[in-house]
């Protein structure tokens, strides 16, 4: 389903933030276990001051419920189609988790910590259910609200969407599926001769 257009994000968010106060406190809405745990903010691993997390840190940034949510969000950004797998198959959520786990950029971590619960709150506001329980059309409708307002970077949910898109694009198009199945990239191999326009079938316009 698509949402009534145009949506005024600034006006709408006042309403769903009231809802969010309820959800984050004593829940007024029915919340599935999965969605409820996705709302919880994980405690960051304790890192001694002035040190850098080791690359092989065993902890994950996302809880398993959040990981499931990020998988669906990323798949909504770049879905599977008849040509190639999408972000889920390309394990983009793992890529994002690793980045957030290891980065020294606390602002970026906050964008994700704040953004995931806000997506849930939005979903509940517009569709009365969590993102993972939503239909593909409902998921697209939620992210379309944010994509249409991508310039409102003072809003945390918009910052989250922009980061989600950027990191999904980065993770997907550097994956095996992205490079080989989707783009069918031809380079990075030994070529005895250079190839140019005269070696390619003429472009029909």
């Amino acid at each position, binding site marked *: 389903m698509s949402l009534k257009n145009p949506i005024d994000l600034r006006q709408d968010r006042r309403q769903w933030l009231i809802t969010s106060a309820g959800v984050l406190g004593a829940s007024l809405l029915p919340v599935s276990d999965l969605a409820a745990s996705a709302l919880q903010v994980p405690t960051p691993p304790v890192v001694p001051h002035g040190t850098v997390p080791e690359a092989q840190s065993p902890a994950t940034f996302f809880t398993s419920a959040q990981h499931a949510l990020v998988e669906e969000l990323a798949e909504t950004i*770049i879905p599977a189609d008849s040509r190639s797998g999408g972000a889920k198959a390309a394990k983009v959520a793992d890529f994002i988790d690793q980045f957030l786990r290891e980065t020294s950029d606390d602002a970026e971590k906050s964008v994700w910590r704040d953004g995931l619960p806000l997506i849930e709150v939005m979903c509940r506001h517009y569709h009365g259910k969590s993102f993972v329980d939503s239909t593909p059309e409902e998921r697209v409708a939620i*992210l379309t609200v944010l994509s249409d307002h991508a310039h409102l970077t003072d809003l945390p949910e918009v910052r989250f969407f922009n980061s989600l898109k950027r990191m999904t694009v980065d993770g997907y198009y550097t994956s095996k599926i992205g490079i080989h199945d989707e*783009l069918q990239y031809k380079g990075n191999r030994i070529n005895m001769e250079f190839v140019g*326009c005269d070696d390619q079938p003429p472009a029909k316009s």
Partner: protein
Amino acid sequence: MAEPPKSEEVDLSKLYDAVVIGSGAAGGMASHVLTSHGMKVLLLEAGKKLPIEKELRSMEWPYDNRYRGDLPPNSHSLTFNEYTIRNPPYGPGFEKFKHLKSYVGDSDYTKNIVVDERENPYTGTRYAWVRARCLGGKTNIWGRLALRLSDYDFKAKSRDGFGEDWPISYADIAPYYDKVDLYLGITGVKENLPYLPDSIFQRPTKLNCAEVTLQQGLRKMGRVLTQYRAGVTTDGLKHNKYRSRCYGRGACERKGGCDIHAAFDSPTGLIYPAMDTGNLTVRSNSTVREITVDPNTGKASGVSFIDSETMKDYHVRAKFVILAASTLESARLLLLSKSRLFPNGLANSSGHVGHNFCEHIMGPGVYGRDKNRVGKPATLDDGRPGGFYVPRFRNLDTKDPNFIRAYGFEGGSGCQMFPSGTGIPGFGASFKEEVRKNYGAFIGMGAFGEVLARYENYVDLDPVVKDKWGIPALRFHYKFGDNELKMAKDMKETAQEMFEEAGFEIVRVNDRVLTEGWSIHELGTSRMGDDPKTSVVSQFQQAHDVKNLFIVDGSTHVNASCQNPTWTIMALCWRSCDYLADQFAKGNI
């Protein structure tokens, strides 16, 4: 390819014929030429000898790299925005990162090649100073565009009245450009342009379809588009066992070098062959802090250096000192080398050391889409050392009313490993399809313009700030001027007009000027000339004040031209070292 030769023990009690400071394009070339004449040479490099193939990993797939080729998250490389809102030194404010790098250090393949900004601070005006301290210096990761200068550059003052002419003309340097071409290899296509002389080219790369379309459009305007003239051996070099010919592999677009050394780098192209003569000794981790002078003769006696790791201080003696530390580091060393005889710094009786500092202004350009390429199957466009070059067309036969000198464009098109079209709005199935359809359709180019060599653009020593080794830091007094900014406006306009002529859809016109220094083409802090009052070195790069001191890097260039400097640095250095060796043999110096 052969393994690098084993370094022999460094004997610091020896009197070397020459000590060379710096192992980049200039230091490598000096080592090659002097040892080929039988001179015993010690080459000092401030950085490490890196296991360079392990750094570059030219064919590694992003998904086989933990960070997909990006910098590890404990490190940070400076962005354009950070260079714009901050002032040097750039260290403070980034304490949470273990390493802070210049903008070039933004990949897993370059991070160990460029220096840590905190260990190597500088002060003054904004400047994106990219430094590579390791054997080979910046040649390990250079852009490879290898262009000749012409008398439009060497005699520019005679044409427009600004600055100084070089004390040489094209005829003086042409035989040395030929030597560099043949010894190191260069790819390109002959164009017979008086303002961009041809090299002795090996097998050229090929243009892809959008590039051919642009070439045809430019031809209608009387402008030229030619294949990227890259310092890359495409046919191989029989005399060099350390370098392979180019096999058109991927990752040439990625910041980083060539792990089969088809692209020129100083170690495999110059230093290893020089070591094989038995005349070259290399000492890495040697941070030179002063060129010492014999107070009785006024001649250079050797250099003092600090072991970069143990911090121990050493001195080595030599009959000649060859300064090749890079334009800015060479100026710094001369200013550091103060003595009773040379109170303003070595070879600085003119007061010109550090001055006339120039480079290339960058940023303006255009990005477009060739509609004929939309929806076509992916093509093989990667694996070329570069796309195309559009030589200068301003101030040749006619005079531009707004600015003097000129600019050229570098550009390319086609399917790169990471798609170009992901900046479009939206997401989902349609986004994915748009990226796929446009994969090979984008084309872009950006300008490099001459920054005038002005006395008031200069560097000196900071009175307070020191680097990790306790050596006074460099302080910048450098800004683009009116001529550059007017030129930048023209760059943007002509870029757009050329894409329109080619029939491309304009996606974006860039008018943003990048931070000073972005070109990494800094030049001119010890310019050459016939008059010791207004220049630092002679046409043979011999210091006017100190006859056994030669400054053989880009610091001696009289102007920046708009053509990339590396090939000229090496041709001039070869010429000077031939002169030096000849004078040495005759016992004249």
